[in-house]
């Protein structure tokens, strides 16, 4: 048989193989199913998508949940992913990031038997205010206050020009609350300290050069500590600190969201935002049947949703003691760090 005759036959055979096998449908099971829908940052962003997936993994380990991650390639995937997650029988669906806010709100109204949660977005700001959804918000200014306080103490010890730097991703509330707390904490330790603030307008790791540039400029202006609040992009800002972490007054970097002490000796500490804990709490509430929508879960220092990461051994223990005293005051409500700049 010539190839010309065989080609259509082969095509038909291949198609038939595809078609005939397509009848098996998913079987229904009674196990608790939980899912997360990422934003376009994908789950390897070393930031909240990654942390949320950690929370989901914990739900699998500790709650025996059958879990699934839906990665969004573009905006056109958000709503279909959120809807498909519900159709696939997931009882709890976590949307990571404010970019999904509108679509999550729409999906929640369409699938009232599925519980939704969104990271970094208050429920009250949702378009349709669905009763089967909650917002997971973070009082990051509390962590920001502590790392800012510690940074100012270090700058005072090192002497020289009293300047700190902060590099934000975008000028949005979930970035600005970190920086506002950082600045207020720094001023608490040293009233005359200056805090330089810059924005890269990017979170993606592909733009880390942009964050580095901003940080280098701040270092030129005398910044002794660089606090990054820009996700993957911000790793560039920490690189700038690393390159200048030498001499009499080494420049320090402060990580964000996850504990970024693993990046090297130049990391003073990290302001941690435990998205994984928040995600796990949401999943476990839905699993136990105690989920009540229409409100926010606010994560603070007090309930362990915010924290401070590993502190460099170069920091004098007295500073850590002082910082912990401040931490107690924040938990007691004696100090209220500002959330806006």
């Amino acid at each position, binding site marked *: 048989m*010539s*190839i*010309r005759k065989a080609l259509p036959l082969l*095509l038909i055979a291949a198609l038939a*193989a*595809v*078609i005939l*096998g*397509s*009848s098996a*449908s998913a079987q229904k099971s009674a196990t608790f199913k939980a899912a997360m829908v990422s934003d*376009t940052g*994908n*789950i*390897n962003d070393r930031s909240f998508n990654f942390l949320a997936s950690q929370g989901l993994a914990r739900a699998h380990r500790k709650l025996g949940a059958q879990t*699934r*991650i*839906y*990665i969004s*390639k*573009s*905006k*056109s*995937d958000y*709503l*279909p*992913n959120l*809807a*498909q*997650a519900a*159709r696939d029988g997931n009882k709890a669906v976590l949307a990571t990031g*404010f*970019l999904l*806010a*509108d679509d999550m709100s*729409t*999906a929640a*109204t*369409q699938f009232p038997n599925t519980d939704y949660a969104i990271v970094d*977005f208050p429920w009250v*700001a949702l*378009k349709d205010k669905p009763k089967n959804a909650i917002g997971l918000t973070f009082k990051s200014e509390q962590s920001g206050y502590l790392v800012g306080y510690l940074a100012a103490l270090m700058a005072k010890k090192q002497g020289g020009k009293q300047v700190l730097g902060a590099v934000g991703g*975008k*000028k*949005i*509330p*979930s970035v600005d609350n970190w920086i506002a707390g950082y600045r207020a904490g720094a001023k608490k330790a040293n009233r005359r300290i200056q805090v330089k603030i810059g924005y890269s*307008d990017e979170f993606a790791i592909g733009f880390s050069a942009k964050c580095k540039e901003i940080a280098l400029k701040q270092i030129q202006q005398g910044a002794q500590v660089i606090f990054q609040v820009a996700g993957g992009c911000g790793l560039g800002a920490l690189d700038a600190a690393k390159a200048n972490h030498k001499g009499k007054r080494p420049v320090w970097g402060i990580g964000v969201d996850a504990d970024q002490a693993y990046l090297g000796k130049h990391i003073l500490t990290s302001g941690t935002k435990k998205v994984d804990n928040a995600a796990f709490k949401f999943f476990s509430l839905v699993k136990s049947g105690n989920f009540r929508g229409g409100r926010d879960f606010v994560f603070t220092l007090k309930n362990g949703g915010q924290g401070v990461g590993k502190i460099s051994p170069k920091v004098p223990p007295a500073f850590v003691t002082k910082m912990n005293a401040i931490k107690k005051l924040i938990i007691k409500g004696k100090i209220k760090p500002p959330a806006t700049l």
Partner: protein
Amino acid sequence: MLATPPAPPEGEGPGETVASRFAFYQRAGGVLTPLVTTVFAFFIGGLVVLLITHKNPISTYKAIFNGTGLNWFFPWISHADRINAAFNLQSTLLLTTPLILTGLAVAFAFRAGLFNIGGQGQYAAGSIVGVWVASSLTGMSGFPHIVLAILLGSLAGAGLAGIAGFLRATVGAHEVITTIMLNWIVFWLAGWLFGQQGPLQTSRERSLTQSNDIAPNTHLHVWWGNPILQGLHVGFFIAVAMLVVYWIVLNRTTLGYEIRAVGYNPEAAGYAGIDVRRAYFLAMAISGGFAGLAGVIDVLGWKFVLSVDDVQGQAGAGAVGFLGIAVALLGRNSAVGIFFAALLFGALLNGTSDRHLDPAVFPPTLAENLTLLIQGLVLLFIGADILVIYLWRARRRVVPRKLARTSST
């Protein structure tokens, strides 16, 4: 890359003269090469699936195929499967709609010998103007409002590409350079317009960097599926109608004739009395109009709002403007070809979304890469179409000889 191959003349079957036989093979190659290259790309993609993930490529492709929703056309699938297939097919056609238009945009410029690489920017310009018109002027009644948004959005795309066409026609600035530069102007313009404290930023929720929602009466009618969950809107028919418009303008109007003549040979066309500069400008403007239309239709059809990340994120399904180049290449600049190429790319984008790929079948983190892999292979092989035609003809020369040998023994 700039010169398009001459269109084959009309004629059925291999004729008597050398010229007509050559034309027939070209026509045959015109249909066969895209088909063969696509099948080949999927085959190689399957090998990669097998080698990298050690999963069965057939089951991966089956999941992708079901994910596209094309199994909806099969009469024997179960009721539950059909419901799911309907959702998926709606998503696929939703992506096909802008791809048809951006494909037309690239193809139209191609026919004039121009390479409009700025489809993404023109698409964005159409979206921006579309969302602005549809979210303001809320007093207008639905239909004229929609028409106005579509007209102005298309004009925005046409104007943007027209700048590149004008520059090419007057000072000879190459359109590849100018259209790419214009892309970035639009992307960052959107960042300013819809960004924090931007002039068009939403008044509903100040933490969101996006536009206002468009007026509810400007939503395009959804004729299939749930209008709230991105059902299929009438924009699909607008796109299909544009395929007809494209064919008519190119093949049945003076303007189309002039544009094709300029595409074959600008010097000869100019010598024959055709205004080459005018043809360049109009070809680019019409091309941009198609891309701008795609942008408006997406906004009125399912986006309803435009965010900064939406305009500036250029990965995956966000890059319909760039994918239009691939669609035009695979569709060989013909209306029918563009329809099927757009359908293929739309299906590929939707089918490889990891919501359709059970982690047991394929690792979801690799799903996007599989899309890119197959797209890349299709383009690579399309570029090698001359080789495929050569092999095809070589085989035809070999077969009769073999037959002769077997019959003689």
